[in-house]
């Protein structure tokens, strides 16, 4: 089933399982959201469970906080990545800190769903990679599924979490199909996963870039280089076990991301791998990322966003050491 339908199924299951779960956001009711992720849910669960809100991101997050104080588990949809910033204070200064401020007397089970990333040819503010802002903020958990099966399970796990979860949906993956196994959860929410075995270089990626990394690994194999690919899945906290195991075997690592490289996920993972697996490394950890520029006009995004060739160029560089 397509990624967006898997999310829809996961949300439907969460709504059916608990009447404390609410969906709220702009155009998520009759329209089903601009990406149709919530399609049909208002018809099924009613306007009291699936709320079309006024157009005000700070209040969407802020009222979700108040609803959580009242024992609800709100799931907010932010329509596009670039529109999360009007709600940024409520996420980083309020939502992230309320449990700490209340010395544990209060939990904040709020999920913020954000379609993010490029490759859909959209206009300005409709393609951003804001993950580093949120991973830098203590109190938030940040996750990003890359497959329909993960989308189905991770959204349910995020809703079950007593902590606030920033749920980043790689929008270029919405239409990608994959198997969903509704009978069993594959992994816990915060586990990373080796998605391809290899022996020469470890490629770590998250979100939409996992597919690009797999593409690069397939191309490398044709040229005789064996790449292992790790899907981060959870951006905060990061599950370093599979990454370090992999690097200790391959001795080389490349981090691939759409986001700008400066103070990014790739920077963080590279630093930690250097600290913890220094004697296993045969080459410096390399980052492949978007440039440190604003996201460009859509006609240039193909140059801005790393593709398989850019990843392979980095793989070759690590092998040259």
């Amino acid at each position, binding site marked *: 089933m397509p990624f967006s339908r898997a999310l829809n199924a996961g949300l439907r299951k969460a709504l059916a399982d608990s009447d404390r779960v*609410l969906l709220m956001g702009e155009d998520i009711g009759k329209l089903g959201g601009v990406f149709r992720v919530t399609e049909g849910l208002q018809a099924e669960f009613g306007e*009291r469970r699936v709320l079309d*809100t*006024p157009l*005000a991101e*700070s*209040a969407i*997050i*802020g*009222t*979700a*906080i*108040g*609803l*959580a*104080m*009242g*024992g*609800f588990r*709100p799931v907010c949809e932010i329509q596009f990545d670039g529109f999360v910033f*009007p709600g940024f*204070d*409520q996420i980083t*200064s*309020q939502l992230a*800190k309320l*449990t*700490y*401020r*209340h*010395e*544990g*007397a*209060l*939990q*904040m089970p709020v999920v913020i769903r954000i379609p993010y990333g490029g490759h859909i040819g959209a206009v300005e503010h409709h393609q951003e990679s804001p993950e580093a802002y949120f991973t830098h903020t*203590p*109190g938030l*958990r940040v996750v990003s599924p890359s497959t329909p099966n993960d989308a189905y399970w991770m959204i349910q796990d995020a809703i079950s*979490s*007593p*902590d606030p979860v920033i749920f980043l949906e790689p929008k270029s993956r919405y239409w990608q199909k994959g198997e969903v196994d509704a009978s069993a959860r594959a992994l816990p929410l915060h586990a990373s996963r080796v998605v391809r075995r290899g022996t020469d270089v470890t490629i770590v990626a998250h979100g939409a870039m996992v597919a690009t990394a797999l593409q690069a690994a397939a191309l490398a194999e044709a040229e005789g280089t064996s790449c292992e690919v790790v899907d981060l899945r959870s951006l*905060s*906290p*990061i*599950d370093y076990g599979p990454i370090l195991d992999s690097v200790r075997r391959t001795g080389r690592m490349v981090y691939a991301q759409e986001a700008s490289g400066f103070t990014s996920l790739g920077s963080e993972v590279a630093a930690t791998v250097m600290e913890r697996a220094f004697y296993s490394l045969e080459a410096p950890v390399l980052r492949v990322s978007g440039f440190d520029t604003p996201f460009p006009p859509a006609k240039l995004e193909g140059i801005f966003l790393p593709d398989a060739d850019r990843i392979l160029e980095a793989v070759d560089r690590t092998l040259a050491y």
Partner: protein
Amino acid sequence: MTPSEDTSLVRVLAADGSLAPTAAAERYLPLIDALAESELETFYRDMVVIRAFDREATNLQRQGQLALWPPSLGQEAAQVGSARAARPQDHLFPSYREHVVCTIRGVDPVDIIRVMRGLTHGGWNPFDPKNGNTHVYTLVLGAQTPHSTGLAMGITLDGRSGTGDLERDEAVIVYYGDGASSQGDVHESMVFAASYQTPQVFFLQNNQWAISVPVSTQSRSPLYLRGEGIGIPSVQVDGNDVLASYAVSKVALDEARAGGGPRAIEALTYRMGAHTTSDDPTKYRTSDEERSWAERDPIERMRVFLRGRGASDAFFADVEAEGRALAEDVRTRTTALETIPADLIFSNVYSDPHPLVDEQRAWLAGYEASFEEDPS
């Protein structure tokens, strides 16, 4: 700046303490007539006693015992009136100057002190019944308004308001100031409240100054009109008149809890002290202005009113003594507040375990232990 004298202002007590209701106050008079003498005395007692606490806290800051203190001096009537109008089941969302509100609802004044002494970011559990559903202070202006609206939305979804039983139906009141009224969150929150018809009262204390910036920079029209523009019935009240503040709050809360949707109140008052103890009001306002507001002091006004009704010297002496006792108690307990364990840094960042926080907690413990002297 003086309170608007337009006909819409609700005032019951004139500045000289005489009963002189404005036309807009007429509809509220039965509520005031219904107050027992003991309730009138409670209003006065609240104002005097908590002013004594506020003055003591200011002194404690001057003596280096607190990092900061935002005085509530002068705003007692708006806070007492609104907080005494709330029913026990109501939820109250203060910003950071509502010491009077919090104390009336049961929050220990020393719990407020702990915030300003740097011992906690919260100070009390709003869900502990002894704190009267009073939420913790929020320092980002207006940020608490959408929280209050969300909680009120939840009350509606749970069917805990609008049932026709005013003794059980719940409402929410949120406090903010004239400076915060410029914040987007306040407007967004009002839009949500109007859209979802929340059982909620927006209580704006217009104390004329946002640190050094006068209210005329925040708004060229009376602030209560903003509620009207969003579809929220709104009232302007003399916030230095505890009787009027009580009555408009009581009516607004009951209308909201009965299912009538949100209400907004602008209480015209004056911050007689500094914005906080870090501030110097002499740099931006005149002594004439301060004097003109001192003549409208909410406590003095109520004192004259009660005196005219025959309150005894013993009553006033008793209230003064109670204020002194509270101040002394706060001083004693403040200086006895102990340091907090370093581990608090790592507690409650998340509700579920988080490896990064756990690693750093363990690292700090090991690092601290490395300084322990070797007994040999």
